[in-house]
């Protein structure tokens, strides 16, 4: 027998492995695609987790209102969230506008409020600014 020849079992084996590799590859990508459909926003103030919102399940606009300390209003709509009003000085949080993507983050430093869209599938791990 020529040594270059593969047995039937070998060929089936190689095909199977390639298929499994392809399957896992698709699964990996599929999993991340599923994550993208899952937009979860977290609102944290002074270290306390105030609210977790599934942005895709929001039907009518909702408001998260902080009356104490630095007054703030956060507006939640389907697929997006933003600081609407804030009593802080620079209003960077309000200027930041809508958050729509996983990993996006709006922060109000004076009020110690953080709004994040959490998830694994991010464009970058962190940003320098």
């Amino acid at each position, binding site marked *: 027998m020529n040594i270059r020849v593969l047995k*039937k*079992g070998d060929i*089936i*084996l190689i095909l*199977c492995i390639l298929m*499994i590799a392809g399957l*896992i590859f698709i699964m990996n990508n599929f999993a991340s695609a599923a994550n993208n459909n899952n937009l979860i926003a977290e609102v*944290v103030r002074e*270290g306390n987790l105030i609210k977790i919102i599934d942005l895709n399940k929001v039907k009518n606009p909702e408001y998260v209102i902080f009356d104490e300390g630095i007054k703030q209003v956060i507006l939640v709509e389907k697929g997006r969230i933003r600081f609407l009003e804030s009593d802080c*000085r*620079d209003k960077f949080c309000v*200027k*930041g*506008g*809508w958050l729509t993507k996983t990993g*996006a*983050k*709006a*922060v109000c*430093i004076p009020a*110690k409020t*953080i709004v*994040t869209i959490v998830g694994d599938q991010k*464009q*970058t*791990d*962190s*940003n*320098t*600014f």
Partner: protein
Amino acid sequence: MKKIIYVLSILIVLILLTSCSISTGKSYKADGFALGTIITQEVYGRDARQVSVEAMDKLKFLEDLMTINDLDSDSSKLSMNAGKGYVELNPETISVLKSARKISDLSDGAAFDITVAPVVKAWGIGTDNPQIPSEETLKKLVPLINYQDVQIDEASNKASLAKPGQMIDLGGIAKGYAGDVLREIYQKNGIKSGLINLGGNVIAVGSKPDGSPWSIGIQNPRSETGGIVGIIQVSDKAVVTSGDYQRYFEKDGKRYCHIIDPHTGYPADSGLMSVTIITSSSTDADGLAKAFVLGLDKGMDLVKKYNQSYSPADAIFITTDKKIFVTPGLHDNFKLEDESHEYTCIKKG
């Protein structure tokens, strides 16, 4: 044929079992506030949570030493005793002062100088009432700027400011210094993978748990929503940016940014919108990012000089005409990722 199927099914089960048993491992993410900014930590490894808490405590400790808002802080003590001789300070503060000295020396004080504080105060950028100081005021204050007047007596942990009226502002180096301190805390605790973001200063500890580098976004200086212009991949590096957009005020259509040119006493206006430095030391990266004051050519020279005399450093300069200049070490690394489609990338030799 039966045998083949039998063996293959075992193999498939084995492979799938492997896939399931591979877990994400222990990781901990934490947001917090210190040094007047937001701190984000992502820690992988055993004791991830304790390490992040230890890091946060350390940051608060450093903040107490370096803040200018508290009269009891080391930084205030030094400023209040300007021209009155040495004051005893925490060894940690002495260490910060030494680092500041080293960075100032690189540019002979042209880019970075902690004694710029009196002028910073006169402008009040970032406070409730920023203003343009009068010529006379600046004429009086600018001569007070001289980093060499910060005298350090390491042996007895003492320091002094030579002339009355001089003040220091460690705001330009505190975050950078803290980054190195935090990395040490991580490493001391055996953390091999972590990502720290100190209000925009990114410190990548090791690489991602899966061995790939961290991808770090470079902010678009004119995006109010925190959009990015590009991405770089780094492991074990600090990535620090200085820009005209971080704190500024506008008057009569002109933008006055918070970074003061130590030579003129005016906010830096050098044709740059931001400078990003990538190097091992976070402190040095923070200091080098002040090359922002110098403009493109002199700034690039400063980075080159650091490269030759200390350790490898790379930089990304973004000019006001929306051109992005990257140093050779980043030619293959920097990826333009610009949603605004306004920027062009120029690879500089």
